[in-house]
């Protein structure tokens, strides 16, 4: 079966499974839930192309995005699937302080009322999807863009941070490029948050905010990443140095997320 056919059958199956889920919800009570992903820099909403300080030197972000997959709300061992795959693209949402403080809205669906204590999502494209290519999907599907795929890895680019940095610290040009392109199955990470206290109440919209503190992607227990020496990685599997940096950045992405209630 060709991949396109596979995708077709898969969508069909998905459609059926979704419609049967809906039926369950109709039986019990269900309510709307909305999840907003927000990016901040040192606590303030991160605005693309605005200048920030890192290590005393100015920097801007020109791209910030990641694939969010298998978003699940949990209650003990009960799980509710909220979203399978989404390209959370702050580049398009965070264009002004006002827009950035709203963030990227991910889900607005109905789930069973009750209390939930956990939330998890993947940072990256799960391996089954990652064996596909953008050409298998329509241009409006999150996996349908050739810009998000790196042929040399046979993988989607799980996360991208791109920007520029005033390496010489003269306060003028941002002469040094930074880019962290993370991908391939081994770079897939899962964020799991437990001990939450989320009540989904009948006839009320439940809103959850997930915040990404971008400084934490560069700054972990081992200290700050030096942008002049470690400012770029393509996650080249033939380069041990790039793989080490990418692994570190992938781990840092996990820790940079925080679920606010």
């Amino acid at each position, binding site marked *: 079966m060709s991949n396109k056919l596979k995708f077709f059958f898969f969508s069909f199956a998905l459609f059926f499974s979704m419609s049967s889920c809906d039926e369950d919800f109709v039986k019990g009570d269900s309510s709307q839930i909305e999840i907003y992903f927000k990016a901040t820099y040192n606590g303030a909403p991160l605005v693309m192309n605005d200048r920030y300080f890192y290590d005393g030197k100015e920097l801007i972000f*020109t791209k910030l995005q990641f694939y969010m997959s298998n978003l699940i709300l949990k209650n003990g061992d009960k799980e509710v699937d909220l979203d399978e795959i989404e390209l959370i693209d702050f580049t398009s949402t965070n264009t002004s302080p006002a827009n950035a403080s709203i963030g990227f809205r991910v889900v607005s669906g109905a789930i069973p009322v009750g209390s939930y204590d956990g939330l998890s999502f993947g940072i990256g494209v799960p391996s089954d999807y990652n064996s596909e290519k953008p050409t298998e999907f329509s*241009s409006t599907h999150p996996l349908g*863009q050739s810009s998000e795929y790196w042929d040399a890895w046979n993988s989607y680019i799980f996360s991208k941070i791109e920007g520029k940095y005033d390496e010489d610290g003269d306060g003028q040009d941002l002469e040094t*490029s930074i880019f962290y392109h993370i991908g391939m199955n081994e770079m897939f990470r899962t964020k799991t948050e437990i001990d939450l206290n989320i009540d989904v109440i009948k006839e009320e919209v439940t809103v959850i905010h997930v915040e990404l503190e971008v400084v934490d992607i560069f700054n972990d227990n081992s200290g700050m990443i030096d942008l002049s020496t470690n400012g770029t990685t393509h996650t080249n599997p*033939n380069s041990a140095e790039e793989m080490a940096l990418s692994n570190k950045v992938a781990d840092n992405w996990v820790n940079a997320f925080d679920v606010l209630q």
Partner: protein
Amino acid sequence: MKTRTIFFLLILFFSACKKDPPTDPNDLTNIEYNPSSYSLSIPESFPILEIPEDNPLTYQGVQLGRRLFYDPIMSADSTMSCFSCHDINYGFNEPLSLSKGIDGIEGPRSSMSLLNVGFFYNGLFWDGRSHSLEQQALEPITNPLELHDTWENVIVKLKRHENYPTRFREAFGIEHKNEITKELVAKALAQFQRIIIAGGNSKYDRVLRGEEFFTDSEFNGYDMFFDLSPDMPDAECAHCHGGPLFTTNEYVNNGISNVNSLEDFIDKGRGEVTGVLFDNGKFKIPTLRNITLTPPYMHDGRFATIEEVIHHYNSGGHYADNLDPLILPLNLSEQNIQDIIAFLRTLEDTEYTTNPDLQNPFE
């Protein structure tokens, strides 16, 4: 005797006509409307061709679009049509730095290749101001620097024409000549442009399918283009010119313009459309299939040769706050540059020129 029979037949003929209710000479309903779907072969590695529901590809629509594309009836002085600036022999591009319209005046930009244009879903033109081929095709006719006509005039010419009304009937089922509109002209042109598919049989594609091998030089170019091995310099090209069509369809500043500030770009490109200062000087990333056959290069045709293009990228480009981070000094040697060019040559594929449906129907 002979004349008499003819006369008699003539009378019969006329009286037969008279018996029918008086018909409108502009009525087209006596022409059969039975469009057949157009079958298109798309290379295996290409994206899905997304066709608007209200403009399905039909044989009749494509053939009508093809005639319009090549017919000078589309310009005010009947000298030019789309093909004048989008020549099949130049990758549906033209070998000029800046396009010239019917009045011989240069426009501000270089023409663009129409190869695989049906797959570009993130906006058309260098600045992305048009959202679809159906919308785009409305522009060149009235643009004073292009075909410099009016739609009223073009529609009158088409209605009066001896066979266009029939062709519009066959393609779109209109019942009356008055139903010929600019929107239908645009739909037909869009259908024709969707079949301009090239690639799938370039050396690059054959190598990917395991049917052929790169030379060493081509392979090294390929390696640098896609940043494969840490032993060769990264040329970073595939970040922007990636995927089967060698473009990600994004808008970026690739550093060709030397400006002091973001306000100073002579052509603001994407910024003109979005109104965002940071988008000034950003342009659509073009496809690189057949690129070695279609100099000059860039939106203003500033580089005459492919060597100049790679030297530009090697330099890291001109600084601007929105210079893309992936444009940076590459440290390529002269040999590296030749290798990248050798790789780009493997993207040449002129098989499409032999597709009769793409050729000029008036030749």
